[in-house]
């Protein structure tokens, strides 16, 4: 394909059936923002994109269009962003991490100074039984959570405060959905009038406080916030912490070529053995100097191909599953991702739809080696191709693979996602299924002309 424009010739009239156009690659045309009414409750629908001018020309028309677009952008950016009084959610920053709620019954002996006790003895998160669910990295709590965000974010403690992880807090404050307050110096933890006294945290301060805290790198945050904005639910995976070293590095290679099935000898088999005795291609076959298949008479191409199979290949099914900590740090699953359509419950998260590893191209300048990539895939559960469609279509089976993982490659803020699948070509003996349908039949009408 020399030029994407050539496709237009062969493309169908309706452009919506063309899957190859990636809208995210295009520059935003801000004029469409004018049609989006921020207050209207009726959704305007997705605006249609126009065609691009590829080079400047001296017409006033082009200058006008450009000015209009620029004006629209400024218009959109100058729109005042406010915290609505109704939806305002106040949170407090806890620099020490999780602090268990002050128990009223324990506080009774020291009546009147319960606030001080929680401030002066900030107990670590671990010893208390009810705090088992709260991550030690959580550092922001919301005393009275409301709104849809807390369906997928945060962890509630025994006194129904919701504790947020750094990325969750940063996402919400960046979005304007959360008002984070600095811990008040007056040391009254949950006084009624505290909201008025405490100092709100700025976005800059939030970035300074949260990025770098508890393993949250800017790369991970870019991935988190990017997917979150698209509606996905993300939770930290067990492999979040980098400092856990591989426990045992011994690699066990337990995969070999599956033995071919042999049929019992029938009459033909006996005759065949006689025949083989007469003209046995095997007797002249030699893998040492070749020819592998021998020089005798071959009775079927299947036999020829079976004899050719001398190269060992990796079988993902028989390979042992590995613990996430066997992987080498950047190539480790750090987020579990749930589609917007997946029913998600915070207390019991379902099987993730995707698992994602985040790699920074500045720290890890090269692609993973086979060991690193293999360990990453083996730390994910087996997900073989299933279903009637997969049964029928070999190409789909190969593309789906037996295990899969998404790798987010972050290059200075630009995130590229790669889906990596363990596809075992060795398990698909192409020579055995001649003629059957191999892949999805694309209708010729909406298919681009391809090169051979």
């Amino acid at each position, binding site marked *: 394909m020399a030029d994407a424009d050539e496709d237009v010739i062969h493309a169908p009239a309706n452009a919506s059936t063309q899957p190859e156009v990636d809208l995210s690659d295009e520059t935003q045309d801000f004029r469409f923002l004018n049609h989006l009414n921020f207050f209207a409750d009726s959704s305007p629908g997705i605006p249609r994109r126009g065609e691009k001018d590829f080079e400047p020309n001296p017409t006033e028309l082009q200058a006008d269009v450009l000015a209009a677009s620029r004006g629209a952008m400024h218009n959109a950016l100058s729109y005042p962003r406010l915290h609505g009084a109704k939806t305002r959610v106040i949170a407090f920053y806890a620099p020490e991490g999780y602090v268990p709620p002050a128990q009223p019954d324990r506080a009774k002996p020291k009546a009147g100074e319960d606030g001080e006790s929680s401030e002066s003895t900030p107990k670590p998160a671990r010893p208390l039984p009810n705090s088992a669910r709260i991550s030690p990295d959580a550092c922001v709590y919301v005393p009275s959570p409301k709104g849809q965000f807390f369906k997928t974010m945060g962890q509630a403690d025994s006194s129904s405060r919701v504790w947020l992880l750094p990325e969750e807090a940063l996402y919400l404050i960046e979005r304007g959905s959360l008002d984070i307050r600095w811990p008040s110096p007056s040391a009254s933890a949950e006084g009624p009038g505290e909201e008025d006294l405490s100092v709100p945290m700025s976005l800059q301060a939030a970035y300074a406080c949260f990025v770098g805290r508890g393993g949250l790198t800017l790369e991970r945050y870019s991935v988190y916030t990017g997917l979150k904005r698209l509606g996905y639910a993300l939770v930290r995976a067990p492999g979040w912490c980098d400092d856990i070293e591989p426990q045992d590095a011994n690699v066990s290679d337990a995969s070999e070529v599956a033995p071919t099935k042999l049929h019992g000898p029938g009459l033909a088999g006996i005759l065949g053995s006689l025949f083989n005795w007469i003209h046995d291609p095997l007797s002249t076959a030699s893998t040492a100097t070749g020819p592998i298949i021998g020089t005798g008479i071959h009775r079927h191409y299947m036999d020829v191909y079976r004899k050719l199979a001398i*190269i060992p290949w990796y079988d993902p099914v028989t390979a042992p599953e590995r613990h996430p900590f066997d992987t080498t740090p950047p190539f480790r699953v750090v987020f579990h991702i749930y589609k917007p359509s997946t029913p998600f419950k915070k207390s019991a998260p379902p099987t993730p739809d995707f698992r994602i590893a985040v790699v920074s191209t500045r720290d890890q300048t090269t692609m993973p080696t086979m060991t690193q990539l293999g360990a990453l895939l083996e730390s994910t559960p087996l997900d073989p191709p299933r279903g009637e469609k997969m049964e029928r279509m070999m190409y789909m089976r190969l593309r789906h693979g037996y295990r899969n993982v998404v790798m987010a490659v972050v290059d200075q803020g630009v995130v590229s996602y790669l889906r990596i699948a363990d596809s075992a070509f060795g398990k698909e003996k192409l020579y055995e299924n001649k003629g059957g349908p191999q892949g999805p039949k694309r209708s010729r009408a909406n298919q681009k002309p391809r090169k051979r």
Partner: protein
Amino acid sequence: MATPVTTMDKPVVAKSGPASDARPPRAPRPPRPNYRQIHQFPLPVNVHHVPPVIPHNPLSLISVALSYLTFLISPPRQEVYSAYFDKATSSIHVTEERSINALWQMGFFGKGSLSRSEPSWLAREKKRRGLHNGKTSEEITRLRRTERRELKLERARMEKLAIEERLKAEAAAREAGVSEPLDQAAQSTPTDDTTNVTAATTEKFSLKKAKEARMLEAKQARELAAQNAAFAEQSQPETSSNGKSVRFSPVVQKKEFLSSSPSSLQLPDSVVDNLDSDDFPNEEHLQLSNEEAFFLAYSLGALQIYDSPSKSGEVQSTSPISTAALLQQFCHHSFQPARDASASLQPDDPFMISYTVYHHFRSLGWVIRSGVKFGTDYLLYNRGPVFSHAEFAVIIIPSYTHPYWSETEERKNYTAEKQARSWWWMHCVSRVQAQVLKSLVVCYVDVPPPAASLDDIGGLFGQYKVREFLIKRWIPNRTRD
């Protein structure tokens, strides 16, 4: 103005019905050759099926016995083809007509030295000299490309024209008065409803539109002619006078004419044609890559490779190169420039790794061919390139997991350098594959430690291990459901 043309030609096209009457009628396509018949054998190996034994039918036993007997009396011979190694190009040349056809038809080995893939130079040359009808694939491609280039030129011209007209209109508006431009400016302010402006002004000339405009032009020309012939009335339909705002320059039309009759272009050749018209030698030979040649020679035993080309009409005097020597030679020639013959073989010589992958996919039944045209190492075809497009593109990365490779610091550095692939390279490869609709397979080959002896080639390759990963861009917007 650009907009009247684009908005107007659509109804006209709809009225005009089939597009074919406007375009120059295309010659009917010659029937496709029966590829199923031509390429019925997947490998250049003779296979002799044994008649099936039907237990109820004693006669079938006789036929089986008979077939065995004939094999016993006159065993069929396995065809062995011959080729020679060309040091200059570091590839294998097959010059014999019969071998070329056999190797191409059974398993799609090699490529024609003067063709894109199938050796078709002779057919093209005959066609050019007017001896042969039917189109080769190269010619079809060339025709398509000329057509596209013209359409693009036309589109560029139309765009330029539209811009000029726009400039004229703007200048006229400026002269007419100060109030009008103000109105225009007010129209395009962001506060206004800009949908109409957006839709109308950003409409550009796509190739499709260029085509439609060409059809319109042809139709109008015909209409005009018909009208002139029928009545000498002065009134012209408004549509045609409006549509004429975009004219086709004579240059393009002339070019079109030339391209439709390519033979007229080659003036000096026509002189040559008169000299000899039907008897000329085939200047083309089949080029096998080293992997293909080694597979044919070592795995199938269907190819004998000599050191030098055989003289025409005489039998090769020297004996073919032995498999072990062939492996050595190919390994040395997998470097650029070729290594000295005395250099010892390393287990990670490029040839060893690429042959491992080649053999692996061939043994699974894929037709594996070079992927250089898409920037990959290999392409995988199901059955062959004439049947379907390649579905997978393979890139090879060596891997050194054996403890031998991490024993010393020097080896560690060496292997790290050999395995390193940058992310940018990866993104480039994956973007190209997405554009040509191939799935990218990253094939890691685990390299064993150096072997003590090279006597057992099969054992040598049995130590390598292949693992395939399928890498595809993941677009979160599309997997949301």
